[in-house]
C-alpha cells in the first residue's frame, strides 16, 4: 500500500473513533435534558404556592421587611452567576459569563460596588484566570442540583442582604442564569432577585385577575413574612439552578450533534481522497507494467534480428 493511502486510512480510523465518542455524548446529554426538564416541572407546584403565599402577605398586610425594602442609596450589589462544572457545551458558559460581565459593568457605571458569587467550575476558572475577586463560590452539583444545594447557595446571600451595608452587607441581589426555553433555545438572562418588589410578584401570580382572600395570619403577618421570604429566595435560586442544568445539557447535546455531523463529513471527504489515491496508485502500477512489457518487447524484437 502506498504511503499516502496509508495516511488517509489512519486518519479515517481516528475520526471514526472520535465520532463514536461524540455520538455517545450526544445521546447521554439528550437523556439528561429530559430528566432535568422533569425536575423543573416537579419543582413548579412548590414555587407557585410559595409565590401565591408571598403575594397574599405582601398585599394583605403593610409589613416591612429588609428583603422587600429598597435601600435609598445602593452602594453595593451582589451578582450570582450560574455556570456549569464541565465544558463541551458550545457557547453556554461564555454567554452566561458575558451577560454577567455586562451587568457588572452597568452596575459599576451606576457607581455601585459589585460582589460576585459564582456557581460552577467554569465561571470560577474564568474569574480566577483574570485574577478577579470572587466573594463566594460553589462547585460540584451543577449537573443535578438538589434543593439542599440551593439552600447552601442562598444562605450567605440572604445573610449579606440582611447585614448593614457598612458592615460588608449588600443592598441588592442580581442573578444571572441560562433560561431554558426549548430544546433549541436557551437564553442567558439576568434578573433582580432582591429587594423583592411585591407588586411584580403580585402581577405574576394574579395574572388571571383573581382576588386574593383576606388571610388570617398565624402567628402574625411579620412572622409569616420572615419565614416566607428566605424560602421564596431559595426556591427562585433552585429554579434557576434547575433551568441552568437543563440548558447546559441541551447545549451539550447540540454541540455534540454538530461535532458528530462534522466528523461524518470529514470521513466522507477523507474516503474520497483515499479512493483517489488508491486509483492513482493502480493507474501508476498499470502504466509501469505496460511500459515495462513494451520495453521488454522492444528489446527481444531487437535481439531476434
Amino acid at each position, binding site marked *: 500500500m502506498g504511503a499516502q493511502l496509508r495516511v488517509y486510512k489512519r486518519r479515517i480510523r481516528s475520526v471514526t473513533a472520535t465520532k463514536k465518542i461524540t455520538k455517545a455524548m450526544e445521546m447521554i446529554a439528550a437523556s439528561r435534558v429530559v430528566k432535568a426538564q422533569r425536575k423543573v416541572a416537579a419543582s413548579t*407546584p*412548590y414555587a407557585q*404556592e410559595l409565590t*401565591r403565599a408571598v403575594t397574599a402577605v405582601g398585599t394583605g398586610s403593610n409589613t416591612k421587611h429588609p428583603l422587600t425594602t429598597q435601600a435609598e442609596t445602593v452602594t453595593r450589589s451582589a451578582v450570582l452567576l450560574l455556570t456549569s462544572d464541565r465544558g463541551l457545551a458550545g457557547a453556554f458558559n461564555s454567554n452566561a459569563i458575558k451577560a454577567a460581565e455586562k451587568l457588572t459593568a452597568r452596575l459599576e457605571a451606576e457607581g455601585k460596588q459589585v460582589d460576585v458569587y459564582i456557581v460552577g467550575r467554569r465561571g470560577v476558572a474564568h474569574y480566577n484566570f483574570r485574577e478577579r475577586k470572587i466573594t463566594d463560590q460553589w462547585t460540584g452539583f451543577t449537573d443535578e442540583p438538589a434543593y439542599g444545594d440551593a439552600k447552601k447557595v442562598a444562605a450567605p446571600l440572604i445573610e449579606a442582604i440582611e447585614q448593614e451595608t457598612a458592615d460588608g452587607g449588600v443592598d441588592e441581589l442580581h442573578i444571572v442564569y441560562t433560561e431554558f426555553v426549548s430544546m433549541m433555545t436557551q437564553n442567558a438572562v439576568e434578573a433582580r432577585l432582591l429587594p423583592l418588589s411585591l407588586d411584580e410578584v403580585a402581577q405574576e401570580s394574579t395574572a388571571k385577575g383573581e382576588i386574593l382572600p*383576606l*388571610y388570617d395570619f*398565624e*402567628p402574625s403577618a411579620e412572622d409569616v413574612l420572615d*419565614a416566607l421570604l428566605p424560602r421564596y429566595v431559595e426556591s427562585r435560586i433552585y429554579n434557576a439552578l434547575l433551568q441552568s442544568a437543563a440548558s447546559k445539557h441541551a447545549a451539550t447535546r447540540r454541540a455534540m450533534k454538530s461535532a458528530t455531523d462534522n466528523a461524518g463529513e470529514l470521513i466522507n471527504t477523507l474516503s474520497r481522497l483515499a479512493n483517489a489515491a488508491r486509483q492513482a496508485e493502480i493507474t501508476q502500477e498499470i502504466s509501469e507494467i505496460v511500459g515495462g512489457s513494451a520495453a521488454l518487447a522492444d528489446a527481444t524484437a531487437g535481439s531476434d534480428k
Partner: protein
Amino acid sequence: MAAELHVAMVAADREVWSGEATLVVARTTSGDIGVMPGHQPLLGVLESGPVTIRTSDGGTVVAAVHGGFISYADNKLSLLAEIAELSDEIDVQHVERELERAKAEGDTSAERRADVRLRAVGAR
C-alpha cells in the same frame, strides 16, 4: 355528603400527596391547628411535626413535615414544606439508626428530624 376540602402537600422538589379530605391537623408555631371545610382563609408557619389528614373516604394519611407553611383559601389547602414524607415512605429501622447516630454525635437538628419521622409513623 360531608363537605370536603382539597389538599395539596408539596415539597420543594415534588408533589407528595393531593386529594380530598374532611379534616387536616397540623402543628403551627403557635400550636396545633385543625382545618375543616369552610375555615376562614389562613396562612401559618408550620413547626416540624406530623400532619394528619383525614381523607373523605374515611382513611387517614400521616406525613412528617419539616418546617414549612400551611395556607387555606377557597376550600383549597396547601401544605408547603422543604421536606415532607408520607409515613408509608418512612423506613422505621433506618430512622432509628439515624436517631441513634444523631444522639451519639449530638446533632440536634438531625435528632429532631428523626424524631418527627418516628412520631409520624407512630400516629399512623
